[in-house]
Structure formats: structure tokens, C-alpha cells
């Protein structure tokens, strides 16, 4: 079976799961502690393998940006900011999508129905995080799905594979979940608050 077919099967599975979970009370989110990131990029590889993301410089769902560098001894420091689609509550990519190809599950995960994508690329211009790209194998725009097909039994691939546990995935509506406890205990920020997208990815300060 080709990688392409597998990717399409995942999209179909996501659609079925989203429909099955339409009454879900869960609210998924990811809390990231970027200070733990060692820049190994295992998350980017795991994402590609899990989701059959094709090779190519522009074909990536998640990324690890090298944020700051201080090359002088003794203050040598490198920091990283891993990121991906922010699965915004206020979803500009879905608002501009003419065919409802981009949709949001009850749990807040933003997904793409490849069969409905017309490749107008309006979502790419609307996304303030540059989280989307054209997959020329699928002939559709694609992005991070939070590995929706694995949820909730297994964590997303990027979360599972991280050696230093940068990402924690969970239900933001459950006060006993690890994500809720982390957010209650720490101060945090979200990316680009000025554009009022209200991301579901939270960065611990």
C-alpha cells in the first residue's frame, strides 16, 4: 500500500472518529515546556513517520526553531521552540475555507478533509503560524492533526517520542489531567495573542 493511500486512510479514519465523538465533552490541548527541548527533532521525524508526510523542504507539520544563541563563554546558551498547528479555538483557516474542508472536531482538533480541499490556499494565507502546506501527493493542503487517529488511547506521536517530555497532551476540561495541573501550577503564554486565535498549545514561561 502506498504512503499516499495510507495518508488518505488516516484522513478517512479521522472523519469517522470526529463524527463518532461529536458529543464528546473533552477539550484537547498540548502544554509545552520549551526549556526542556534539546533540539533532537525526534518529534519531527515521528510526525513524518506516523502521518506519512512526504519528503521535501516545505513538507512538515511540526518544526523546532532554534530561538536564541549566546555563543560566548561562560554564558553559552541555545534554546528551542518546538511548534506546530495551534488548533486555534478561533480558527481563521476554517473561516476562510470555502468548502468546509477545514473543520474542527468537538474536542477542538482542527482537521482537513482532503476530499473537499480545492487547493485555493486561502487557509495558508489565513494561518498566522505558517502551519499548513500543499501536499502534492494528496493534492490537498495538510497540517498537524494532533494524531487524531491515535486519540485518546495513545498520545500524539510527537508527544510520545520526545525524550525530555517537552510536550504533554491531555484534556483541558479535566481538572485532574496532567495538562490542567501544569497550567494551574505554571504561568504560560500562547503564540501571537494579538491575532486573537486562542491557541490550544500552551507554552510554560
Amino acid at each position: 500500500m502506498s504512503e499516499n493511500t495510507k495518508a488518505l486512510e488516516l484522513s478517512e479514519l479521522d472523519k469517522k472518529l470526529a463524527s463518532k465523538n461529536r458529543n464528546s465533552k473533552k477539550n484537547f490541548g498540548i502544554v509545552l515546556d520549551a526549556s526542556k527541548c534539546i533540539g533532537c527533532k525526534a518529534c519531527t521525524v515521528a510526525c513524518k513517520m506516523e502521518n506519512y508526510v512526504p519528503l521535501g523542504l516545505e513538507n512538515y507539520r511540526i518544526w523546532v526553531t532554534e530561538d536564541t544563541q549566546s555563543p560566548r563563554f561562560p554564558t553559552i546558551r541555545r534554546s528551542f521552540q518546538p511548534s506546530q498547528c495551534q488548533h486555534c479555538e478561533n480558527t481563521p483557516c476554517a473561516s476562510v475555507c470555502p468548502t468546509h474542508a477545514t473543520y474542527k472536531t468537538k474536542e477542538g482538533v482542527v482537521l482537513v478533509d482532503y476530499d473537499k480541499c480545492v487547493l485555493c490556499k486561502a487557509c495558508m494565507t489565513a494561518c498566522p503560524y505558517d502551519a499548513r502546506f500543499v501536499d502534492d501527493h494528496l493534492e490537498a493542503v495538510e497540517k498537524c492533526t494532533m494524531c487524531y487517529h491515535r486519540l485518546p488511547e495513545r498520545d500524539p506521536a510527537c508527544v510520545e517520542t520526545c525524550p525530555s517530555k517537552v510536550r504533554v497532551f491531555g484534556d483541558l476540561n479535566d481538572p485532574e489531567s496532567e495538562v490542567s495541573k501544569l497550567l494551574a501550577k505554571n504561568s504560560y503564554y500562547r503564540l501571537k495573542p494579538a491575532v486573537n486565535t486562542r491557541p490550544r498549545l500552551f507554552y510554560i514561561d
Partner: protein
Amino acid sequence: MTTHTERAPSLASKTLTTSLIILGLILLAIGGYASLQVLLKGHEAVYAVNREVPWGLLIATYAYFVITSTGLAFIGGLGHAFGFEKYSKMSKRIVVMAFVILLAGFTQIGMEIGHPIRLMMYLIVSPNLNAPIVWMGVFYGIELIILAIELYIIFKPEQKESDHNTAKIVGFFALLVGVLATSNLGYVFGSLNARPFYHGVYFSIFLVISGITAGAALLLAIHNIIYKFNVPENLHSSMKALGKLMGAGIGVMMFLYLWKILSSVYTQPGDSYLAAKALLWGPLRTNFWVGELGLAVILPLMIIVLTKSSNMKALGVAGIIFMIGLFFTRYDFIVAGQFPPMREGLPGSGVHTVNGLAQYAPSATEWMIFALGWGVFLVLYFLAERFLILDTKEH
């Protein structure tokens, strides 16, 4: 009363129209070859648009053609519905030109969108009414139908008084829907909160104004070409009126430019500033200063002012220069808004920037698709000139 059906011998020579049709056919062949490449190899393989700049030349050329069409429909509407006699003297050419150039625009968006047929299907099955692109499809679709009805009315063999009244109503709707379509096209960009240079009401206004100006410019240019720069006396008053309209349009465009650029520069170091920087002294500087300002503002305005909009040949030259400059206007606006990257081009980010700006230059195939648009316009329009009577004798 309008006597659209009066037969008047067109002054356009057969040699000229045939030559322009042949030129159009050559451009169609070039565009056809490029279309085949797109269909066989896929958009990603032959277009230069990328992750950071997903909308490129073909969106610009789509805007170039369709906004000119709605500008023409606006001028036609002024003539038909609001009694501007000087414009109604050209009503046949206006309607034919508006219809044909709208079709040229559709070729551009058809080749830009990955799945145009799927788009039409889902616009009916599950349209997202919040999406500006849906309304763009709706308004431009209606505009095409209205222009088709206008075409039918003006070429109907036996004209009645009631046809004139129908033409008035249809002309009014062509004007109204045209303005809605163009301002909504501005909203496709203006709704993008992520792109501060686009965001807001500016482009809705600018596109309408520059579209009407383009309509006037194209009419001035085509009339001069058709009559070999010897426009007949009976059209002089219409040409002068179009020259004044074009001059006023450029004046308003200058006013809009001034405040858009100044307000963008003042957002330093924000994305609007970066877009303005790209235009003023960045990678788009030649396009902006020479193409956009030189050809679409300064030169045509100088010609119109210095000749007091009364020299027909000069008006034709101004129209041609403006239409060339307008290409840069459309291209710059589409590209500049996307040059500020959504993420910094730091190591590991995957974002490719040079001097803090994303990069894009159209591919050969994209240019060839632009040729397809011109091919459609030249072939269809000059076939109409060749085989139909487009002179509207009296009003």
C-alpha cells in the same frame, strides 16, 4: 432613444483585427501548452508559489482581468442606467469587452486553483458562507450571467422600447454586482487578520477605484487601436469623458497610496512595515517605483493633465501605459502582503527568508498562463470586432 442595432461600418480594418486574432492564437497556444504542463505534472511541479507565498502571479492576473471587467461594467452601468450619454455611445464595446475580459480572468483562477471543478461542486453542496471566496464565486458568477444577458439584449436583431428599459435595469445590476464583486475580492484579502498589510477595508476601496480607472484606460486604449489612433469625431466627447474619469481615478489612487504607505511605514517593525519596505526599497522596488507609480500613476496622469484630456492619440497612449502599469499594481499588492513571513526564518524553522522577507518569483509556466488570459481576450474580443458591429451609432 438608444438605437443599438443601427448598422454602422466599423472603422477597424480587417488586417488589424486579423493580426490581433493571430497574436491571440499564438498566446493561446503558449497558454495551452502551459496548461497541459500543469495538468500532467501538477501545480506544485510547475508553479513557483511556495509555503510562505501561496498566492502568486495567477492571483494577481486574475485580479487584473476581473477587476478591469467590473470597472468596464461600472462605466457601462453609468451609461445605461444613469444616463451618462457619453459612455452609452460605447455601450456595445463596453459589454463585449467586460464579458470577454471576465472570461480571461476565469482562465487565471481556473489554472490557479488546484481543483476548480470540485470548488464549483462544493460551492453548491456545502458552501461555507463565512468564507469571502464563496461570495467571490457567487458575485463573479452572477456578473458573468448579467453580462451575458446584456450581450443578448444589445445584439438582439429587432430592438424594442422595452429592451431599452431592460438594458437600463440590467446595466444597473451589472454596476451594482460588479462593485460588490470587486470590493468582496478586496475582502478576500482584507479579512486576513494574519496579514496586516492586507487586513482592513483599504483593498476593497482601492480595487474598486483602480478597477473603474482600468475600465476607462482599456476603453481609451482599445478605441485607439481599433481606429488606428484616429478615433472618429462622434466618439471624441466620450473619449474625453473617459480621460477625465481615468484622471480622477488615478487621483484617488494617489490619495489612497499616500495614506496606505505612510500608515504602513509607521507600524515599524510590524508586518505592514515589512510589506511597505519590500515595495519602497526591497525586492519589489523596481516594480513599485517604475511599474506601479511610473506607469500606472505618474505618466498617464501627466499625459491626461498636459493634454487636458482632449488629444485622442495621447489618451490612447495613456490608456496603454496605464494597463501595463496596472499589472505591477496587482502583482505588487498580492505579493507584498505575503512577503512578511508568519514565522521568523531562524534555523530549524523551515521558513526561507532573505533580509527577513519571504521569496517568490513567478515561474515560466505562470507567465505562460498569463499569456493564456491575454490570448482569450485578444481572440474573443477581436473576433467580435471582426464579425459583429460594435459601433453604437446614436443615443
